[in-house]
């Protein structure tokens, strides 16, 4: 008791540093942790499957998946499956995204179009597009056409929503500035609205393309001889876990690659951001 009292007296007399209470709550870039997470996770699974506390029916051994991957590469089957998938994704997503950006910008610029199309887009958005695949098969044929249409429609709606949101968020004072200098309407759209909306459009693209990949696999599962989706479906029905996981890894890699691609574009085009 008395000791505590003397200590508190000490505190009030001798200078002491102000305790630090700030810091934290700010994301910082840390290199290598992302890769380390993958490495540790895979190492644990490898160890578990070898030691036996993960059964072969639960998870395949990562080294076996790698072996399957090597086979795929050597037999040339990897490209036989990957190339049709990539072309479907690129063509379908390009159609959907470009139409989506165009419609989104129109909604952002013209109130009549907004009033007409926003409810329609809201009605289209929640429909699981896979449910429409039989319809698309009749409309666009059993071949590539229906797959393009599915991916295009799937990427279209989220692109529209993110694009008109991005146009709405363009700083109005900049538009007012353009008008005060008597810039033409078209100049204002091209030089102020579109560049101002670009960050929002690009972040919407991340979501749209991920949805595109999901729909690609779904479409290929329902009717394709070659393609990552067909490959996964076949492996799944044979309960060939190594091949199933090889397919899934390819899809993840595709997702990581597109995300990295968009990040690269953002770094190039949006270096003006604070």
């Amino acid at each position: 008791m008395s000791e505590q009292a003397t200590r508190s007296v000490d505190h009030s007399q001798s200078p002491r540093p102000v305790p630090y209470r700030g810091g934290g709550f700010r994301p910082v870039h840390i290199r290598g942790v992302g890769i380390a997470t993958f490495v540790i996770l895979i190492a644990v699974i490898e160890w578990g499957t070898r030691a036996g506390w993960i059964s072969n029916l639960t998870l395949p051994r990562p080294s076996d998946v790698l072996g399957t991957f090597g086979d795929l590469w050597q037999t040339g089957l990897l490209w036989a499956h990957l190339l049709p998938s990539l072309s479907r994704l690129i063509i379908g997503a390009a159609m959907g995204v470009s139409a989506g950006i165009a419609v989104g910008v129109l909604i952002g610029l013209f109130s009549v179009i907004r009033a007409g199309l926003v409810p329609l887009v809201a009605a289209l958005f929640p429909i699981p597009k896979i449910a429409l695949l039989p319809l698309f098969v009749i409309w666009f044929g059993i071949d590539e056409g229906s797959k393009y249409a599915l991916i295009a429609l799937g990427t279209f709606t989220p692109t529209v929503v993110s694009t008109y949101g991005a146009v709405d968020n363009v700083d109005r004072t900049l538009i007012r500035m353009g008008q005060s200098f008597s810039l033409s309407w078209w100049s204002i759209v091209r030089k102020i609205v579109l560049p101002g909306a670009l960050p929002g459009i690009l972040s919407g693209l991340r979501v749209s393309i991920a949805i595109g990949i999901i729909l690609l696999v779904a479409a290929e599962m329902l009717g394709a001889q070659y393609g990552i989706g067909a490959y996964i479906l076949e492996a799944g029905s044979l309960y060939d876990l190594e091949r199933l996981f090889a397919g899934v890894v390819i899809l993840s890699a595709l997702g990581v690659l597109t995300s990295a691609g968009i990040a690269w574009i953002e770094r190039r085009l949006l270096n003006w951001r604070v």
Partner: protein
Amino acid sequence: MELRLDAVSHRYGDVEVLSDINLTIPEGRIVCIVGPSGCGKSTLLRFLGGLEVPDSGAVLQQGPLPPGCLNPLTYVFQDFALLPWRSVTGNIQLVLEDRDLSRSETRAIIDDVLARTRLTDFRDALPKQLSGGMKQRVAIARALAVTPAVMLMDEPLSALDSQTRELLMDDLITLWERAPFTAVYVTHNLAEAVRLGHQIVVLSRRPGAIREIVEIDTPLADRLMGDPALEAHQARLWQIMRDEAAAADAELADV
């Protein structure tokens, strides 16, 4: 060119914001408009530049445009309104792109205004690299590039710290001394008004009407900080505005 407001009145819904404003902006002079917040001074400025139309009354321009004038009524905004994705040069170039100017004419104009605002060394910088004072100097350079007949300045220094504000006021005075321009300068800062205004228009609030017009004869270049005559003007303006500013402050926002 001269600008004239002729019996201008305006209401937003039920609120009468401006009532029977008659005011002439003479050529070659800086007219400061001061008043408590909510007195409609920014609205008045939007009328003067044609960004908004009053309910009644007329906004008139009279007299010849200065030679080479590309955009007679040109704003300088409080928040600079620079395109963040364009460099200093690009931002100035923006307002010259829609005109029939050759590439060499454009370059000559940009070089000239950059030199006048002492920004030549920063021509390739992006807005995010510049301080607030520099950004406003870019905005002023951009306004000068179109050789305006009247500069409409909407609290141009309010977003800046007081030291930067002093520096920019000196810059504006130097610019005016070298080539007298016509300007309407809206501010709530009375120190700015007495430093820069040849004429100071005091608005009352709700509805905004002209309370008083104060003329200051001291040439701009001779108005130094701490000049007793200016301080007397400032004190008097504050006397006129004080009660209304207090009322404006005590009011609940109904936006």
